[in-house]
């Protein structure tokens, strides 16, 4: 009996040790070889660095801190400083893949940032590396890599959106791109909202989305809608199409601070309070002035 118990105890102990070991040494973050060589399709410029910084501040700083200051968030595994040597040793393709696909706890930014934005933030990260030389921008196709172009059409009456996806060949000719996953996003105050699940283009390179009728869209119902290629492989080059469409539900948001309240500013004081205060004040001071006038009269009467 005792032996059996001890046996179970040891078994549990060993399992716990192993899992602890597994936890402390997180598996390396492997990037498929063909993506590693992927390069940015455009030249990094001070402008791309600037927009990239903006993207970084909003999306990355909370974990990675300020590049060069080693002040990343204390989480496990450590996010690391983007300006560090280890970080900068990644190729652009590796960085792009990691930002796109994410790995818990780092989010999958493929859903949140457009391809262009992802490259821009990389250009920002690279600006901390004096030795960095950008590989010549090219759109390399073949062996799984494709260059695709999206267009979006809207049918307001039925709240339908069509996205047409064309592949651009080396010789600039366009053919319908079949089997590409397209994701719809809507811009919100912070980041983007994915609308429904991604859909795959048909033989004509076309997908059809039924747009939800209940998405709140500000006072005039205008939503900023984005269609993107959802690409887990990191091999596609694609643009993002954006349009401001009045396809949402118009909502007038009533601000909490609109109503009169005890805790609000002076101009929003409850009416009864303003009245009580002013009336009391006027009454009492009215009498005071009456008495002052009486005193004047007192002096004058003989």
């Amino acid at each position, binding site marked *: 009996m005792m032996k059996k118990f001890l046996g179970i105890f040891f078994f549990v102990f060993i399992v716990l040790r192993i899992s602890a070991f597994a936890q402390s040494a997180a598996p390396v973050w492997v990037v498929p070889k063909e993506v590693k060589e992927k390069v940015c399709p455009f030249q990094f410029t001070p402008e791309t660095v600037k927009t990239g910084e903006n993207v970084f501040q909003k999306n990355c700083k909370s974990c990675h801190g300020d590049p060069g200051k080693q002040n990343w968030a204390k989480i496990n595994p450590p996010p690391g400083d983007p300006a560090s040597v280890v970080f900068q040793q990644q190729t652009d393709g590796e960085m792009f893949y990691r930002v796109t696909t994410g790995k818990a706890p780092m989010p999958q930014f493929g859903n949140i940032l457009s391809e262009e934005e992802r490259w821009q933030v990389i250009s920002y990260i690279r600006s901390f590396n004096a030795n960095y030389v950008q590989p010549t921008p090219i759109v390399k196709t073949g062996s799984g890599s494709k260059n695709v172009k999206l267009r979006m059409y809207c049918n307001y009456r039925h709240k339908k959106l069509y996205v047409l996806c064309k592949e651009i060949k080396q010789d600039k000719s366009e053919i319908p791109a079949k089997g590409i996953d397209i994701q719809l996003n809507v811009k919100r105050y912070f980041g983007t909202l994915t609308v429904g699940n991604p859909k795959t283009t048909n033989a004509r390179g076309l997908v059809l989305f039924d747009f939800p009728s209940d998405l709140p869209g500000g006072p005039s119902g205008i939503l900023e809608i984005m269609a993107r290629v959802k690409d887990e492989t990191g091999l596609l080059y694609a643009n993002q199409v954006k349009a401001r469409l009045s396809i949402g539900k118009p909502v007038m948001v009533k601000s909490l601070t609109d109503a009169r309240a005890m805790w609000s500013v*002076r101009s929003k*004081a409850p009416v009864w309070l303003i009245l009580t*205060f002013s009336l009391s004040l006027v009454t009492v001071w009215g009498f005071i002035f009456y008495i002052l006038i009486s005193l004047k009269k*007192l002096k004058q009467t003989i």
Partner: protein
Amino acid sequence: MDENNAALNKITEDLTFHIRITRGFKIWMGFLLIGLSICLYAYTLQLRFGLGVAGIRDYVSWGMYLSNFVFFVATSLIGMLISGVLGLIGIKWITPVARIAEIIAVAFAAIAGLVIIMDMGRPDRLEYVFIYGRFQSPILWDVTVVTTYFVLSALLLFLTLISDIAWVHKKTDHLPGWVKKTYQVLSLNWTDTPEKNHIIRRCVRILLILIIPCALAIHTVTSWLFAMSFRAGWDSTLFGPYFVTGAFVSGGSAVIIAMYFFQKNYKLHNYITNQHFNNMGKLLVMVMLVYLYFNINEFLVPAYKLKTAEAINLHDLFGGRFALMFWAVQIGGLILPIILMLFQKMRTPLPMLIISLAIFIGSWFKRYIIVIPAQEHPYLPIQYVPYNFKVYTPTLTEIAITLSSFFMALIIITLLSKFFPVVPIRETAVERGLVEEKN
């Protein structure tokens, strides 16, 4: 008729006897002015280096200044009780006491406003309270009502003085010319005519009626400064009446102390008699019994339930850091005086003076007990702060600045009582049937 005139002359002589500059007055004023200058020096330090020179910090941000403010507002309320309430009911014996109460009311209300400014880090921005004050804020109500009460009290004091000033004007040839001139201006050409008396009587009546709600408002609002914020120890619906009755206690004792000194120094034994001390004693016992009753409610009800946050505060009062002060104030400043004053023998001038001093000092510390301990026990825990943030200890500078308020109040009381009759001449004459009230 001649007899009448002689009696009238005697009264006027007696009641204006003290209106002369004596050596004693000079020494007393000198003492007050020197004391005040030392304290004002302390205030210049605060102006230069900021509120940090006081012991108040982030948690206990209302320290001795605020408790002193509550005390001054409280004491000033006595004018309303004696002139307003008792006067309107038609109680006769208050005549020689009423003006003393009004002088105390004016002095303490005026200084209450200044005490609040002492608590300001940027007194140069005082006008912002009015410019940016919110209707929703008890602070705005408080500054409004304190100002109004001061004006009402000052007007009441002045109106009841007018006829007396005219008489003093005739009796004070020994004073310098400019003083006489001032009397003449202040008397507003008063003569004993029905029209003039009618105007004065009507105005006094309006003031007596107005001053009652206004005095209630001033101290109720002062209590709301506390009761309307989230603090264990202040979160009480009883605070308004609790403060108001407490006010009559401190004000009543102040009046008795003043009565004693005026009777002795101004030789007013025939006007402020033992009977007045006796009556004031009874009045004080009455208000103190009400106050005791409120105290029992205020402490027993939460002490029975001992809700977590209240419990921390109450333990500190009953048996902790503030226990000595708490029990000294409750027993020495409330229960013992009540018991003593139940005996007729104790309601004579000297015992009344001593008892009143104990009550007066106790009243000051009572405000301290109300204001400070509650702030040392906020709902959220106090963490990562230096020791002097957690426990409030007033600094010497702060104590000096607080003392300045007493010097200023005493200066106002001294000057008013020196240059004007402390006991109303005309009213006394009317009461004794020497002057006929023409209507």
